[in-house]
């Protein structure tokens, strides 16, 4: 399938900003008001910019440009944080985190970041099973940055909608609840896991397609049926990755191949 870039047009940013700010505070910064944020991705730039604006201290910076991650600057920023005993938040796309850890491994860099430091990522891992990739990432975070599983969290969001969902572990810790890792949605968002064949809700514990209802998206489309596979229980939900392209079982040519054949012809 040809790749498709998504846009979402907002008549005003007031609701977008509000829907970003409060869940971010609740799930990402439940224990402090501002900290050093190191931004590693440019793509959802409004998100990162607003995160820094609302929650970053004066040391916060976005260390990525068109060429990619600014590795030496990132290393310098981390070093400074260690020296000054200032907790930092690394905020990036999952794959940029992977690149960063590759770099740190290559250059034999290892940090013990100050208590309260956290890694916050979003997005998935192309071509790899999510659970395996996430496990590798967690190992690297502990090994290279000295950050435990409890201080890693992942956000689920997309261009087509306004509001984001977050892992709840930091919120659990701050409110002295048993730590759970599944995602929670803000009050104005509902996530339903649907049977892909019937598009009806499945019971807890069964996998299905994620349907995302976001009232903050009032101006375009409140409900979105994604192609993400998810699973939910009473504590929240978890994203298992993208539903894989349905490979034809047999000798019938797949629709993708046909599309490819025709575009080639044209």
């Amino acid at each position, binding site marked *: 399938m040809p790749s498709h870039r998504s846009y979402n047009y907002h008549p005003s940013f007031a609701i977008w900003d509000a829907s970003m700010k409060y869940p971010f505070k609740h799930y990402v910064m439940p224990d402090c008001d501002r900290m050093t944020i190191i931004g590693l991705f440019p793509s959802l730039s409004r998100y990162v910019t607003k995160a820094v604006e609302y929650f970053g201290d004066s040391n916060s910076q976005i260390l990525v440009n068109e060429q990619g991650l600014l590795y030496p600057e990132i290393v310098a920023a981390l070093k400074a944080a260690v020296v000054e005993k200032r907790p930092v938040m690394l905020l990036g796309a999952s794959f940029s985190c992977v690149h960063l850890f590759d770099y740190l491994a290559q250059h034999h860099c290892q940090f013990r970041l100050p208590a309260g430091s956290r890694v916050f990522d979003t997005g998935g891992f192309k071509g790899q099973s999510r659970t395996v990739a996430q496990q590798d990432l967690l190992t690297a975070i502990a090994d290279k940055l000295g950050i435990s599983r409890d201080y890693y969290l992942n956000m689920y969001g997309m261009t087509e909608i306004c509001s984001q969902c977050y892992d709840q572990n930091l919120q659990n810790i701050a409110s002295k609840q048993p730590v759970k890792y599944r995602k929670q949605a803000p009050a104005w968002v509902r996530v339903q896991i649907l*049977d*892909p*064949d*019937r*598009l009806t809700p499945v019971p807890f514990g069964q*996998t*299905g*397609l994620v349907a995302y209802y976001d009232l903050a998206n009032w101006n375009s489309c409140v409900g979105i*049926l994604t*192609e993400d*596979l998810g699973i939910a229980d009473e504590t929240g939900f978890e994203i298992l990755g993208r*539903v*894989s*392209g*349905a*490979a*034809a*079982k*047999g*000798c*019938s*040519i*797949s*629709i993708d*191949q*046909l*599309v490819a*054949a*025709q575009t080639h*012809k*044209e």
Partner: protein
Amino acid sequence: MATETPLDIFFAPEGTTFSQFKVLPVVADGKTYQLRYPLVTAEELTALITQLHQAQAEVLAPLSVTALVAKLGQAVAYWTDPSYPLRQLAERLLPAITGYNAETVRLELKRFVRVFRKKELQRFLETELDQPAILDDFHPQKSGQLTRTYGPETAFQVFSGNIPGLQIWSLVMTTLVKASTLGKTSLSEPLFPVLFIRSLVQVDPRLAACFAILPWKGGTKSLETVAARQTEATIVYGSDQAATSIGQLVPLDHRFLHYGHKISFAMIGREALTSDHYLTTIKQVADDITIYDQQSCLSAQTIVVEAGGAVTPLMVAQLLAAELENAQLKRPRAQLTQAEAAALIRFRSENDLAALADSQLKVFASKQSTAWTVVYHGQPGFAGSPLNRTVHIFQIPHLEQAPTYLTAYRPYLQSCGLAVGPERLLRLAARLGQVGVGRICALGEMTRAQAGWHHDGQFNLLDLLRFVDIEHQAELAAEPFDPDVE
């Protein structure tokens, strides 16, 4: 507790040893079958192929083609008997393994085996060889020479798992040319070829040494390298990617045949849509889509419908939708994987969205599930479908215009179910042949290729054979050396 029945879903000559096995439980009719297959290693495979070579020389090579036809025909004859225990086992297990409707499996299996009855085997042979006896001996040709032909000693066959039983098409062909077989099955249907070989062994126990059928994960280089190098012919059913990856492993001087992914379609002329014919026509189209949920490359993905009949192309779409809804009651579609279902949901959403902007586009879809989908296009065209009872209908003013829309798909075109009057049949067939179609068939029969069909436009037997000629001069030159010559 239900009883557990062990069942081997592989076949190997007696004396073969495997170090490791895996077991796959399948529940059919309340009974759990433990399907067992070996996790074969490259060394074990090498040993197997050596055995197959030896058996070919000892058992298959000395058999006359007439004897082989008789033995294969006898094995097939067993399968035409509804009380044959292996047939009953297949009828019980295949729906559970594949998810296909049990009645479809029962009906289609018996229809399929009939393609290989003794008289049909002769049809296969004599369609391609004027003198099948040249498989046994040198025989004089009209040109003067003496000719004999040899098949490969051992053939490595990569079967697909989409359609139950389909594997025996190539299995029977290679056996007719006296090749022993190393068959790699797919776990989505590993059973039928194994059962068929068991029938053949029932006819002649010596044949057991000539077949090894077993599954492994497609793309396992270590195994496929051994299989491709140590056999004389490799036959692959599957995607272009699969074929390319195995093809690279086949030495240049070995035979390599590939039956790739294909697309089939139907064309309905206005003469098949008169008020007395249209209902039959619709029923036949629905059958072509329902049988094995379009997983066969012979199933229609697009229906091109000519305007000007008593029912319009749009009405054909509506009637087909209603017929597919009925089919869901009669022969429900297989349960889909999440990925397959999501592909159908995506296909529907894309077309629903497109329909908002195009009043000529209409989506008819089952309401409770993804059971069936018909997308009607008000203009001529051609498109692939995500299968599982999903079909496009394109309206066209004149069927004669259809080939224009097919050219982009040339490498993939295969069967065309064609419903037109006799005077248009040959004319349209010629045009379709020109753009790459390899089989013109009746509606309702699309999924059932007949004996002697040029499989994907190729030969069934000839492509496996190499020919040896004794020139007439050599024959004459030999004469003087006869001590008794005058």
